[in-house]
């Protein structure tokens, strides 16, 4: 197999790429701010004792799911092209994970 597979054009527009990377980074920072925000809400929802657990538990789980989506799609670049195979295996893993947890929360103590 040939190792060298540069984009074909050795004079790729560097400035363009830099700009695109910088833009990307800006999205990353925004998602980080949102993640911190979500974390704060989660801690607050638990610390605030007027919420019943029936509200706060599903609520913080939802926040966790959203935050993880940020991690996966922005920090780990799953929103970029070329992540089809990773998505298949990650979601297959999530599927098995979900089945396992569901089973352990229901039929283990029946």
């Amino acid at each position, binding site marked *: 197999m040939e190792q060298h597979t540069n984009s074909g054009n050795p004079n790729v527009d560097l400035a363009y790429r830099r700009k695109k990377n910088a833009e990307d980074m800006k999205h990353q920072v925004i998602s980080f701010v949102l993640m911190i925000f979500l974390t704060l809400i989660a801690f607050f929802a638990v610390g605030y004792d007027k919420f019943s657990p029936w509200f706060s538990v599903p609520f913080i789980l939802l926040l966790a799911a959203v935050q993880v989506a940020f991690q996966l799609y922005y920090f780990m670049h799953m929103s970029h092209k070329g992540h089809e195979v990773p998505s298949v295996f990650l979601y297959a893993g999530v599927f098995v994970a979900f089945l396992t947890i569901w089973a*352990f929360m229901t039929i283990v103590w*029946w």
Partner: protein
Amino acid sequence: MSTLARKKGVGAVIWDYLTTVDHKKIAILYLIAGGIFFLAGGVEALLIRIQLAVPNNDFVVGGLYNQILTMHGTTMIFLAAMPLVFAMMNAVVPIQIGARDVAFPFLNALGFWLFFFGGVFLNCSWFLGGAPDAGWTSYASLSLESPGHGIDFYVLGLQISGFGTLIGGINFLVTIVTMRAPGMTYMRMPLFTWTTFVASALILFAFPPLTVGLILMMMDRLFGGNFFDPAAGGNTIIWEHLFWIFGHPEVYILVLPAFGIFSEIFATFSKKRLFGYSSMVFATVLIGFLGFMVWAHHMFTAGLGPVANAIFAVATMAIAVPTGIKIFNWLFTMWGGNIRFTTPMLYAVAFIPSFVMGGVTGVMNAAAAADYQYHDSYFVVAHFHYVIVGGVVFGLLAGAHYWWPKMFGKMLSEKLGKVTFWLFFIGFHLTFFIQHFLGLMGMPRRVFTYLPGQGWETGNLISTIGAFFMATATVVLLINIVVTTVKGKKADADAWGDGRTLEWAVASPPPEYNFAQTPLVRGLDAYWIEKMEGRKGLTPAEPLGDIHMPNPSILPFIISLGLFIAAFGFMYHKQHSWSLFVGIAGLLITLGSMFLRSVIDDHGFHIHKEEILEAENKGVKA
């Protein structure tokens, strides 16, 4: 530095195999190691059958019987069937997709050595105070109470070999995703490659629950954990769930590659393309998917309640549908074909009724209400031996005969091969058919003897006789291998004359770079297409040039050895305090070798164009 066609001494050959990262040599290692464990498991099976041949026998009694029984199951599944499947995958899959090697040659070797040391560790138990004795499922309520270190050998040995399997699975997934030759689209992959792909995905998701289960068991037994101890709030059912979340997909991990082997064989020896290729792929993926939703059918009698039992019963029965699709496709492949009954084809044809019987009893077991009758009886023993022997072992024997010339360059004797087949086939049905009825008559599994006068004597005697038929078949196979090795006929590239897939286009055995030029794949059954158009070789996709190869390395061996040492250290830490340091030293060996692997650059080497030309002209390609 020519690495081609060197003459070597014995020491050099051993060193070569200790350090090899070549998938073809790793396949041979898997075949030898898996074969030896298969013999060990077979001897254990014979001991079981001798003990049960007559009522009130005292040949192997009580605790020793439990150990033999446990080791028979554990060895056959983890140390024989799994590595033999990996032997086939390693020997064939990279060549079938037109690749020069697997994606991670180093990890491939590491996977083998981890499996090997795990298996050796497990079998060390025989000499160090007794083997595990809680059944291959090692249910926590039994295994926590088991005295001695038998269960610790089970837990740590399977943990090590399980890591090896996981690594092997990831390696094949990536190989199939990234290393396919130009034109080899997913829907042009041979069925064996497809089944390898799906089985590897199952490994990826099924082995982590086993890993966790084994960690919890290790914590409970060696480090004071309370996962399965009801007195401290634990729950023994957790082990059962984790084990079967792994254990049921494991059945498909074994049987799907066997399905792939049969698909290749049916097409080759019917001289027809596989009937319903797309539906075969679909059925394979569907079986893999459904395989994760049925594990609790092993636990119907554990008291999960009617709702859970009903859900898992229906999901289990659903698996019969894709399996049925496959059976019909194989039959239609043969229909109207130009059939040659070679040894592999005999296994393939015999597989269909044998496996269907296992499937039918499977659906019977899946009916949760009826399962209360079958549970823990010989009916279940008969069922899973029909599936595992009638499916997996037939598949492995068929594959071994089919690809033997490709792996070793010599044809196995067809005459002896057919003797093996008939002995094994008859012996298999003698042994296990009658066990259905023994089970229905109430004979419990895993009990070391029975009383006379219950009508079980004849059945058990027949079963034992059958086991000796299978043992004789195995001996004939070994003789066949020895005879072939000494004076076998040299195999052509297209050893059976009717090869359809890429592995038959390269020399037998293939050169270490597989393909002098990466082939261009122009359709399903790529080699057949070329032959039908009157070409001798494959259409190349690249000019002849230097070929990049990975370097051999001893590190996989040392990494695995470190874990082997560590396992001994941690196992004895309660008796001897210094033993803990042995454990830590073992881990340091492993981590240190991983560190070396990380910091020492490994760019591989190149085989130069001139050497390739020379090798190709010397007649490897003929």
